[in-house]
């Protein structure tokens, strides 16, 4: 009887960021179902824990999985600060962490680590893409908004890496703030040509809703990273979102058999449109499957495992390759929220911003 693969899945399944964690989890589970509950031919056992978006809770859960359950892989974390709180403990045990979402710059540069692989993006990437796009649209100036936490600051830095115009104001607000009246009044008074906002999770829903209610959407175009404009946000905000441009590494209509099966079955199984998070969860499982297969199911061959992972696999985005720091090299697309003739509001791919884009930190990583 072959041994089972134990995968620890720690994610945010309750609270304001729950929608993200649930999507990743559902995507991951869908992939497992498509793989007959096996990874690389080995039966799989998934241990799920909710981190409640709290680093201490996550730390406790990870400890339990590492020391008590002795998992072979960990995955699932949504937020970078949670990942940073548990990363060291995971790497110390020489357990691979497959990130389906969080892509902190720390693990991309000097502190990069052989046990870390990210199947989504580096945190800056979607912002860089949007900066590039707003730059090509030749907006004179732009108003930037993000929550005051490291990922928020990184986001706007990423945007500014490619946007060369004037920044009217760069406003940081309290993390997990839900009422944006003060910030919206500031935007109205500043009269910028465009607004770029990084508002993950529930903050995004509220910001966009309130931006629309204040009547600003018609006056000042709003640009968002893909996180804030995907199916979950569209469901919550509704018509107000039509017309908004956003960036993503994945789109619904990517034309490959894996993606088509994923989108179709996700809709059928969960009765909703998949988001980029769901695709990332799905891909995380595919990556594990490919790597385990490559080492013939021998999980003790850590070096080979790593080599196999970085060599790439067939994902919902087509063949996906990685830099030595474990981050993907991939295309970034432009999407626009539109209302289809049937009334359904969807996010449609309308262009490609970057092709085979790498993250900005890879050169500082000593791993080869």
């Amino acid at each position: 009887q072959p041994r089972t693969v134990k995968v620890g899945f720690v994610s945010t399944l309750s609270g304001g960021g729950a929608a993200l964690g649930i999507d990743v989890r559902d995507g991951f589970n869908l992939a497992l179902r498509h793989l007959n509950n096996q990874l690389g031919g080995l039966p799989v056992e998934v241990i799920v824990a909710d981190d409640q978006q709290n680093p201490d809770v996550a730390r406790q859960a990870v400890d339990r999985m590492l020391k008590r359950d002795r998992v072979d892989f960990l995955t699932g974390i949504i937020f970078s600060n949670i990942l940073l709180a548990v990363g060291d403990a995971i790497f110390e045990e020489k357990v691979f962490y497959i990130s389906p979402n969080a892509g902190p710059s720390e693990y991309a540069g000097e502190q990069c680590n052989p046990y870390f692989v990210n199947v989504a993006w580096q945190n800056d990437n979607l912002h860089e893409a949007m900066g590039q796009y707003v730059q090509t649209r030749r907006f004179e100036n732009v108003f930037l908004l993000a929550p005051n936490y490291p990922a928020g600051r990184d986001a706007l830095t990423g945007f500014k890496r490619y946007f060369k115009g004037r920044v009217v104001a760069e406003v940081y607000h309290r993390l997990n703030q839900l009422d944006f009246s003060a910030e919206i009044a500031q935007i109205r008074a500043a009269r910028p040509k465009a607004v770029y906002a990084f508002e993950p999770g529930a903050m995004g829903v509220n910001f966009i809703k309130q931006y629309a209610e204040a009547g600003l959407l018609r006056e000042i175009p709003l640009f968002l990273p893909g996180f804030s404009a995907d199916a979950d946000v569209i469901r919550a905000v509704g018509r107000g979102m039509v017309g908004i441009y956003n960036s993503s590494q994945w789109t619904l209509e990517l034309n490959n058999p894996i993606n088509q099966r994923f989108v179709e079955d996700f809709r059928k199984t969960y009765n909703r449109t998949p988001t980029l998070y769901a695709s990332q969860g799905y891909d995380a499982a595919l990556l594990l499957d490919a790597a385990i297969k490559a080492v013939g199911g021998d999980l003790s061959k850590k070096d080979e495992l790593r080599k196999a992972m970085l060599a790439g696999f067939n994902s919902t985005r087509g063949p996906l390759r990685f830099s030595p720091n474990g981050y993907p090299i991939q295309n970034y697309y432009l999407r626009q929220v539109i209302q289809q003739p049937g009334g359904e509001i969807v996010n449609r791919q309308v262009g490609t911003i970057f092709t085979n884009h790498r993250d900005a930190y890879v050169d500082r990583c000593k791993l080869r």
Partner: protein
Amino acid sequence: MRWIFPTVLLGLLLAFPPIAAAMGLEFYQGLLTKIMIFALAASSLNLILGYGGMVSFGHAAYFGLGAYTVAILMREGVTSGWVIWAVAVGLSALLALLIGAISLRTRGIYFIMITLAFAQMIYYLVVSFKQYGGEDGLRARRPEFGLFELNDTTLYYLTLGVLLAALYLLYRLVHSRFGRVLQAIRENEARALALGYPVFHFQLVAFVLAGALAGLAGVLMAHYTQYASPNLLAWQQSGHLMMMVILGGVGQFWGGVLGALVLSLVEEILQDLTIHWQLGVGLILLFIVLFAPKGLAGLMRRGS
């Protein structure tokens, strides 16, 4: 016969790490370490809350400050564990002195809220320093102690030692002249003042001592998780410590320890059983308040 139970318990605690290693139970060794750290923090809170009648809703400030001191000093290249401990405890005491000196003007719910206010200020100040991790928190590597290497097992023994020493200190304290006056002030402040006791000074000294001990607990927490989390500073953490004390028994000597032990275990066990574990915790807490007014320590005392 009274000493048999404690001796056996202590023996078990001392022997646990090798047993755990042999049986693959390292996780539970970590859990015990964490419980002992919380027992220390909760006992320090019990000194002011239980014996001093000062309901501080800002105890997380010292707890978190201790942890952050470790992380920041390590980051800045100070790697001596002893130095870090001294600085952390000193800073926590100093912070408690400042907060106490202002807060002790108020009483009752106003005191609860003003201590919360200061803790919140510390929280927001700390997370505003991006170079120290902001909301993400900060890695806190384990320092060097010279005499021994700090790993999970030595940390376990270190924590056990610190907890025992602190409990002994607290025991002597609450039974000393100072401790009796502190409790008298809780019972009837105006009378204590009229008897000639400088009430404010007594309260402040206790407040500072509790802050210093909580800071030490925070240091151990940073050693344990190797990470200084802003959550250690958050009001929920203060509330959690308060729950431990109330659950264990306010002003009962073993209240802090019992509360930390039982609350952590209940959470740990229920979390494994059901995703609705908080329902279980809530029901247990409610049951205890309604039927054990003096907390678990009171319940046990009545039972024996």
